[in-house]
């Protein structure tokens, strides 16, 4: 196993930045400034932070405080560059798990705006939900075109 794994309380967190005011590099710089013993990897969606749990939590909190509603965090099982996930050792392509992360990252501006509204106590608008086409309606539609 990797040396970082020797310490059982070593964790990795994904920090996904979806902010107009904070760029992924700002988040990375914040981590570089911290004097704790953590390893970071800059990625297209944000940053991966690996290190002892307490240090990671502290640094991640500092980053999130830069723009609380537009920076999202989740824990990651594998450390950065792990052979089982890293595409460098898997012959290219996106790593497993990236597809869903990408889909969710595209939703983050919407979620961030909603969190802003929630903080400002903006009342909830009535929204109409798209309904799936009922079988009967589909049948009527088909028959009407015959």
């Amino acid at each position, binding site marked *: 196993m990797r040396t970082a*794994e020797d310490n059982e309380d070593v964790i990795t967190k*994904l920090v*996904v930045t979806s902010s107009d005011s904070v760029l992924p590099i700002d988040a990375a710089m914040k981590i570089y400034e911290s004097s704790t013993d953590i390893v970071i990897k800059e990625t297209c969606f944000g940053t991966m932070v690996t290190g002892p749990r307490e240090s990671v939590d502290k640094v991640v909190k500092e980053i999130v405080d830069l723009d609380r509603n537009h920076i999202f965090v989740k824990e990651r099982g594998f450390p950065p560059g792990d052979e089982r996930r890293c595409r460098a050792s898997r012959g290219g392509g996106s790593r497993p798990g990236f597809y869903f992360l990408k889909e969710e990252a595209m939703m983050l501006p919407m979620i961030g705006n909603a969190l802003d509204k929630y903080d400002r106590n903006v009342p909830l608008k009535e929204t109409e939900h798209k309904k799936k086409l009922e079988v009967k309606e589909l049948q009527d539609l088909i028959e009407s075109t015959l």
Partner: protein
Amino acid sequence: MAKVIIYPINSLILSDLVQRFGHTPLAMMEKIKEKISTVGVDSPPLNITAEEPKHGLKYAAVEVPAGVRGRMSIVGPMIEEADAGIIVGESPTAFGCMGCARTNELTKYLIRNRDIPLLELDFPETDDEGQEFVYRIAEFLKSLPEAEGEATE
């Protein structure tokens, strides 16, 4: 602080929202971390051992594919541990470790069968839906007890 099981079980948005509103998300990532940092489970590209499908027998019958049982050996204990649940349907993608549709069905079924507070909604597509999505999750999480004593079971 309640333990909230989320579905999709590796969701960034749900994991973040649960933590943001002061609870503990029960997500796949932490369990995978436990698995892969255990000495003896170090055989890339696999991150489970032959034992897992046996443990999964608690949740799925023996004729169910080993992949479902292997996944359930990780997901099942999380469901048992949960104090509340959030299920989000219409997931845009279900790739990676979420790729098994039958495991997903079984996961949702077992969460619904637990007698715990449960919120079910769909992934948003528009801004208005996004607002409703966040508001409903926030209100649900705020309605959960701040300090859950023992598990409800």
